[in-house]
């Protein structure tokens, strides 16, 4: 116990008087269970704020909070524990301070860290009586699900989207787990991520689409991607310390292309870069003057890209992106003046080129991997709104279920779905929590089959696209029989090791012992999760003719997970009658799922999952005998802070 400073002799009777409402309604016995219970809250955002407040005022004392995020202006319309002067600070720390006032003798520990880091493995989870997920990203939710199953700690899972919300309880063996019904890959992003703090290519792509709408679409006040004439880069009127980018007016005089380029890739970036709070843990973005670019050589990756690749699969160099950007900008401007407002269409080559080039320039500025036209075309996104009212309802329901669990009444817990308009006189759809899906590869079977062409699919594709993206592994380790084939780790790698790993990832599966009918064991020690995968070789899926018509050629199939339900947007409310469908209905608000390993440009706000590989038996042995010895410079990055 910490923080007893406020207690005095008479505090106990005051405590009881203060909680008289609780004691009378819940009974002293349950109240005492609550005071003994140890709770972990994962996420201190919209729902997290509600949870911490409700927990403290429901008599809970022992609470830990984990959140990686810092506070952003767009959080303040619902994350009521934060104020404007907290912008840029750790959510978990500020949330802790805010609720501690209500019970100074409470024992609250705040972690500013990543739930997926080694610090928070199954051993850490085992100390809690209950875990509450207040997360807005899918891969972290799947991760926590696995760790809770492993540690056998009950989990209250929840999510909100606009007026809609849902929650359920997950208990190993008794209930469905988060992955018993697979969720669609999410495509939604937080607006602050898009506007100020991108960390993945998709964030820049969504931004570029917004810019397109802003410049050439129907006037839309809610599109606040940039204000073309605003040249303020620092300060406020009240404080009388405004700094302006006077170059903007100069560029505007030069022409439309120069003006837009300068505004979005210089003025706006400069303004962001000056927000020092935001860049404490990562490199600030680099504003780029158009005049400087001509001087530079195009030192992009283009050279070492296989020339046999399709033209659209090539990643353009920086200068190429700038050239295309200025060119399409001029063309689109002409069309806009002639035909009026345009709507973005991925099949409209000019519009697509605009988004490809604009997003790539932005990615470059923020140190994010740039993407090929082919890839950009398939990526798109919307923003899911979040409001206080829904969070309040869901937060209340979560703590209600939590009290049931603490009281040993798991059977009284329910799956609940909140809908925007009462239908059939109901606003909350309540149902029993389903039993585990016997086919679930996470909580039941631990066995799946993957069909793919073992002669064309590369190791890297298996690791990143299938194991990490589709099956939510954080740090997969691959073995066949007794042999370790591939190991992940978060230590910094030497250049040679990166090169070795890159080379291995380029190998096709059949040339690396993963041919037809091989049973592959995939283990993630962070999640304490292990699955056996039977590899089935297939030449192709469907005829070439069929594949040509589809936008994405299907290149693998996972057998042994239930089929994914329809995505949220297309789901009519009336059809949400079972938890199975309701469960899929809430998509992510802010998904920061990074699929590409980015060992050369780590971004600390996201999971920097660098991957270590072994190519020889000798090396493999070293790793097995001394895990962690890969730490080449001996220094580990401090990723989290703990306040006691």
């Amino acid at each position, binding site marked *: 116990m910490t923080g007893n400073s406020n207690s005095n002799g008479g505090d106990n009777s005051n405590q009881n008087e203060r909680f008289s409402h609780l004691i*009378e309604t819940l009974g002293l016995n349950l109240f005492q269970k609550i005071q003994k219970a140890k709770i972990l809250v994962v996420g201190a955002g919209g729902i997290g704020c509600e949870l911490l407040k409700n927990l403290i005022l429901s008599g809970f004392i022992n609470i830990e909070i984990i959140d990686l995020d810092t506070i952003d202006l767009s959080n303040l319309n619902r994350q009521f524990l934060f104020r404007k002067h907290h912008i840029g600070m750790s959510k978990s720390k500020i949330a802790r301070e805010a609720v501690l006032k209500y019970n100074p003798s409470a024992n609250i520990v705040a972690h500013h860290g990543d739930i997926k880091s080694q610090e928070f493995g199954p051993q850490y989870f085992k100390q809690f009586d209950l875990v509450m997920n207040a997360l807005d990203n899918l891969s972290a939710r799947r991760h926590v699900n696995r760790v809770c199953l492993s540690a056998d700690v009950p989990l209250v899972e929840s999510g909100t989207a606009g007026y809609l919300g849902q929650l359920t309880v997950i208990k190993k063996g008794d209930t469905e787990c988060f992955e018993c019904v697979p969720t669609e890959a999410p495509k939604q992003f937080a607006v602050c991520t898009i506007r100020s703090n991108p960390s993945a290519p998709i964030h820049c792509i969504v931004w570029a689409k917004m810019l397109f709408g802003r410049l050439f679409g129907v006037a839309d006040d809610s599109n606040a991607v940039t204000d073309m004439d605003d040249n303020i880069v620092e300060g406020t009127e009240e404080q009388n310390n405004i700094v302006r980018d006077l170059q903007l007016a100069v560029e505007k005089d030069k022409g439309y292309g120069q003006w837009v380029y300068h505004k979005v890739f210089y003025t706006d970036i400069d303004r962001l870069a000056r927000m020092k709070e935001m860049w404490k843990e990562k490199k600030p973005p680099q504003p780029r003057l158009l005049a400087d670019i001509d001087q530079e050589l195009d030192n992009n990756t283009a050279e070492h890209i296989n020339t046999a690749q399709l033209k659209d699969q090539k990643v353009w160099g920086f200068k190429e992106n700038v050239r295309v950007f200025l060119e399409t900008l001029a063309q689109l401007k002409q069309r806009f003046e002639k035909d009026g407002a345009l709507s973005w269409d991925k099949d409209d080559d000019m519009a697509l080129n605009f988004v490809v080039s604009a997003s790539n320039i932005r990615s470059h500025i923020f140190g994010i991997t740039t993407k090929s036209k082919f890839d950009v075309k398939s990526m798109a996104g919307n923003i899911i709104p979040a409001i*206080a009212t829904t969070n*309040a309802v869901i937060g*209340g329901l979560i703590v209600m279920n939590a009290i049931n669990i603490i009281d040993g009444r798991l059977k009284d817990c329910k799956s609940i779905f909140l809908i925007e308009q009462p239908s059939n006189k109901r606003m909350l759809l309540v149902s029993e929590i389903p039993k585990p899906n016997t086919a679930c590869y996470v909580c039941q079977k631990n066995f799946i089959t993957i069909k793919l062409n073992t002669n064309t699919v590369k190791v890297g594709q298996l690791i990143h696209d299938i194991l990490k993206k589709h099956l939510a592994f954080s740090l997969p380790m691959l073995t066949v029989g007794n042999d370790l084939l591939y190991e992940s780790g978060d230590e910094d790698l030497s250049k040679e090791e990166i090169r070795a790993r890159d080379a291995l990832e380029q190998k096709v599966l059949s040339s690396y012992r993963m041919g037809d009918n091989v049973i592959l064991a995939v283990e993630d020690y962070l999640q304490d999760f292990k699955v056996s995968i039977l590899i089935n070789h297939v030449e192709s899926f469907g005829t070439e003719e069929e594949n040509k018509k589809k936008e994405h050629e299907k290149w693998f199939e996972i057998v042994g997970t239930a089929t994914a339900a329809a995505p949220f947007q297309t789901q009519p409310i009336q059809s949400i009658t079972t938890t199975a469908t309701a469960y899929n209905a809430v998509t992510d608000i802010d998904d920061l799922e990074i699929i590409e390993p980015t060992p050369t440009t780590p971004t600390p706000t996201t999971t920097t999952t660098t991957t270590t590989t072994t190519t020889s038996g000798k090396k493999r042995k070293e790793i097995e005998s001394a895990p962690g010895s890969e730490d080449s410079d001996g220094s580990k990055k401090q990723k989290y802070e703990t306040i006691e």
Partner: protein
Amino acid sequence: MTDSEKYDRQLRLWGEDGQAKLEKSHICLLNGTALGTETLKNLVLPGIGAFTVVDSHKVAESDLGNNFFVEKKTLGQSRARVVCELLRELNDRVKGFSVEEDPVYLINNNISFFKDFSLVFANRIPETALVTLSAYLYENNIPLVVGNSYGYIGYLRVSVPEHQIIESKPDNPMDDLRIINPFKELDEATQKIELTGLNSQELTHVPYVYLMIKFIKEWKSTHDGKAPETRAEKEEFKKFFLSKSPNPDAENFAEGITNMLKVLQPYRISSDIDKLLKDEKAVNPTEQSDDFWIMVSALKSFVESHGVLPLNGNLPDMHADTCSFIQLQKIYQEKGIADLSEFSSLVDSLVSKLGKDQISSDLVKKFCKNTRFLNVVRYKSLAEEYEKPNTSVIISELEQPDNNMVYYIALRAIDKFFSTYTRYPGFHDEEVDSDLPLLKSATHALLQEHSISSDLVKDEYLAEMTRYGACELHNLSSLMGGIISQEIIKLMTHQYVPLNNTFIFNGINSTATQFTI
């Protein structure tokens, strides 16, 4: 100008217009309980214009245990002032006022105090004062929301004589495409398209709207001028439509099939809208008519001369080459603009006939774009509910086992109990046992008054309520605060349809029910 960066998320839900309405509203809270402050919290965060807290209580130790908007150091101070100050910290754009006065005193001695609020949210106000307040607000068309957080039970009641909604935002609105009854410009554009001249590649890029109109027309020419109506005819039409497809995978044809049943529906003005058009206020507008009813009246004239509502003008995304899509989009847009301008002039002439002020063109436009989604909700006043409740609903609900209606009855009986004994049943621990029979007889008297069998309310529920002794749990108040503030936002923004009229949340089994009592 609103703070669009801070409010970004919510602007995507209710738009600039909803936000502007919210920022104009002034909400009055009677009693700064946990339920009251949690509700206000969810209204101050998204930025209502102002709030006023009326409360004569001092901050007590029990407030510290359930109310997030009091602090230990404020023990003994005015609860109105304390919660007002802490709520204001949530959002510097919102004005907060406190009145250290007993709401009951204001109701009985200075009722006009309430006349300038946009909405009054009352909790823990004794029955007689509440009825007085309700009557006054009802007369002034000010919404009254009553809330209660009582042990594990939450209660919400909304009352306003007439609530008008332009944007009811239904879950899955149908697109306003008029394929079955194309307007002149759409029909002409369709006729201009020569499908026979297209190669199969080009044919797969024709928007399905054109295809449908063309093939329905062709179908009609061989079916006595009738569109497919019966199920068999629709099946046959589907085959006919698909037979025109150059290949089985053509996406535009597939879209046509997906939407076929919807677009083959005969055009019809919904019964809700029809009811509005026939409303006395639409039929006979007067100089007293408000903007909404003047516009409904103008809409009535529009429908009388055209047989259809003004076209919305939006075209959803569909499979097509960019050029034809933009062309089609333009046809819908222009017709939408033409209908709007005709509707606007109908409004203008009605306005000048009645000698009223002009209605802003933005409002007329919004109304015109949403004519399919208009809605008016008329609520009972509290006095009417207490005198003539919907007993058939009450009885049929009570007859079902474990129905939440029982808590509505219990809370009403508790109000009666309070009127008689000026305390809540079981409020003093030592009186729990002796209060239960008193609550039972209050309940039976209430049921008898409305000729409802007293067997329908089991004693165990009353015992449970007595055990609560009017305790308020923070967690339940927080949850109810979420639900109540959501309804208040609907009422203030005039978007979505607020619930009518009573809502009970049961925290024992996490169920919630809405009743029209």
